[in-house]
């Protein structure tokens, strides 16, 4: 197990270095801004002295390098500045908005797996049979619809034409649930509000399904091709020769190995899933970090844009690190070599 710890330690150091460099990239990109953010937040009557005071307050004085050093110093102490628009600390805004997004992403990941594991097996079973062509076309079609369009389609179908599911916000206003963890599905359980739990869950179904619909065809593709790869492996043939049924071979022998490339892909594509929440949250008026980002962009709220962009990157880094860890646990070959 020492090997794994060593490997993960190295990955952790890389991840930290990357987080630092990513913050530099975010910082530089946002300093290219063509207009002066101060001009937008101050009244036209502000004097030069006023402007200078606010500029200093926001950390926008000095060279980019000086600004970055000051910003980094604060950031390492957990202070990402104050939002210009909301007049609140960026960190506290992020902490309220992050749990809803995580909840949405996790629910949609579960949904995506529930769709794509049977989907991948189905496509593998259809290989070189009638119906393969049709299934393939359906797959390309599903790959061609981005998640925010699924969101709109789902809203029109299940929200407007057949109004069976809610599509605005996170919880019906008739329920009030105190934020303990920030996760609506957990908080409602902790407070024994079962009807509120059901309501929170029904609010999650459409946005999570929209994300899952665009994420699962990607998983299906990889799962099918890795199943096809393992199908020719010797141990699979041996299992067949021993007279095991096709399903038993599939479940007991092929699946674990086919799962590894799929897991890697989920890690690589996680940024895609995370990025998808941005528009989905806007479309469903869901109070997560994606919505926060779009509001920040509409108001040229630089400190907030910077904070949210960084959190998105950090999430991707954290997920990739976790996948690496999971990989090391699942794949014994990594432990010995």
């Amino acid at each position, binding site marked *: 197990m020492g090997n794994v710890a060593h490997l993960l330690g190295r990955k952790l150091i890389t991840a930290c270095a990357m987080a630092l460099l990513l913050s530099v990239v975010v910082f530089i990109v946002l300093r*290219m801004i063509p207009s002066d953010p101060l001009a937008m937040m101050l009244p036209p009557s502000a004097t030069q002295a006023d402007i200078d005071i606010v500029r200093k307050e926001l950390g926008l004085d000095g060279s980019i390098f000086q600004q970055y050093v000051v910003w980094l110093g604060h950031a390492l102490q957990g202070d990402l500045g104050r939002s210009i628009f909301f007049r609140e600390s960026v960190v506290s805004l992020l902490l309220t908005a992050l749990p809803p997004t995580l909840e949405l992403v996790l629910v949609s990941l579960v949904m995506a797996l529930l769709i794509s594991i049977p989907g991948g097996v189905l496509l593998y079973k259809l290989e070189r049979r009638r119906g393969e062509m049709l299934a393939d076309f359906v797959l390309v079609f599903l790959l061609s619809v981005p998640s925010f369009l699924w969101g709109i389609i789902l809203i*029109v179908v299940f929200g407007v034409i057949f109004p069976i599911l809610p599509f605005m916000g996170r919880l019906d206003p008739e329920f009030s649930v105190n934020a303990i963890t920030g996760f609506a599905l957990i908080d409602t359980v902790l407070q024994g509000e079962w009807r509120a739990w059901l309501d929170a869950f029904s609010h999650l179904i459409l946005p999570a399904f929209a994300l899952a619909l665009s994420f699962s065809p990607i998983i299906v593709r990889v799962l099918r091709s890795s199943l096809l790869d393992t199908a020719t492996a010797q141990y699979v043939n041996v299992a067949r020769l021993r007279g095991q049924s096709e399903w038993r071979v599939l479940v007991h022998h092929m699946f674990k190995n086919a799962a590894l490339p799929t897991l890697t892909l989920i890690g690589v594509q996680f940024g895609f899933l995370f990025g*998808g929440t941005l528009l989905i949250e806007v479309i469903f008026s869901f109070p997560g970090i994606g919505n926060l980002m779009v509001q920040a*962009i509409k108001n040229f709220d630089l400190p907030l844009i910077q904070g949210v962009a960084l959190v998105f990157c950090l999430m991707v*880094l954290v997920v990739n690190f976790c996948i690496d860890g999971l990989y090391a646990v699942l794949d014994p070959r990594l432990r010995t070599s």
Partner: protein
Amino acid sequence: MTTTTMKYAGARSGLARLCSHPKVVIGGVMVLIFLLVALLAPWLAPNDPNAQDLLATLLPPAWSEGGLAQYPLGTDALGRCVLSRLIFGSRIALLVAVVAATGTMLLGTVLAILAGYLRGWFDRSISFIVMLWMAFPPVVFSMMLMVGLGTGVSNVILAVILVDWTRFYRVVRAEVLVARQREYVHAARLLGFSHLRIMLREVLPGVAPIVITLFSLEMGVAIVVEAILSFVGLSVPSNVVAWGVMLADGRDQIYQAGWNLMAPVVGIVFAVLAFNLLSDGLRVVLDPRLRKRGSE
């Protein structure tokens, strides 16, 4: 057989091979339709896409009750013809798709060939940047760039190029690493050809099929990114028609006029599906390894 007839036979079998795959045919026809609609928009559209008819707002499509033949797909909240806007919206989509995908292809492929062929510090530093880029969710990165660069179609194109070149880089570099080990590349080197010549004449043709495949795919991606950015209001000015703008406008009247939303949805999905089908088909048709498997 003379060389000309052989050449002719080769070209014909090439075209026949291209058309042998249903995805190439269907995708190709769809791309053609998309191109024609975008190019012929002023002649195809029944109305001026920006003309407001405030006496006829939120009309349903012509075939349903209350619709007017003058507005085949109905009108939006300002009484503008939905069909005309759908048709004119394809122009921005096509512009962004072609220019952004070309830029992405050039930047990604050039860097990939240089890095994969020369290796060394250049390869290491570019690959490191790619690793950094991968940590950004693409949508977040492109929106951030739009804030930094300012709104406008040309900046949308620039943002797509700056975000998506890594797609080309990763795939093409891997192909270059294989290609540079081939015997004909070693032979070219022994003959004393310059590195530039080897990269252009020996390596580039080897990676061309995958580049073409990715190019078609990237056109679809660019269309989606443009739609997202104009949906959020970061792309085109208000007098330009774009599918994302139509989505944003239609969202406010979702209860009264759901069809206003479905038109741009259909437009975007049609265009993206066209390029994805073409790309998928080309991948199979252009890959000599997959081709051989098929003919055996």
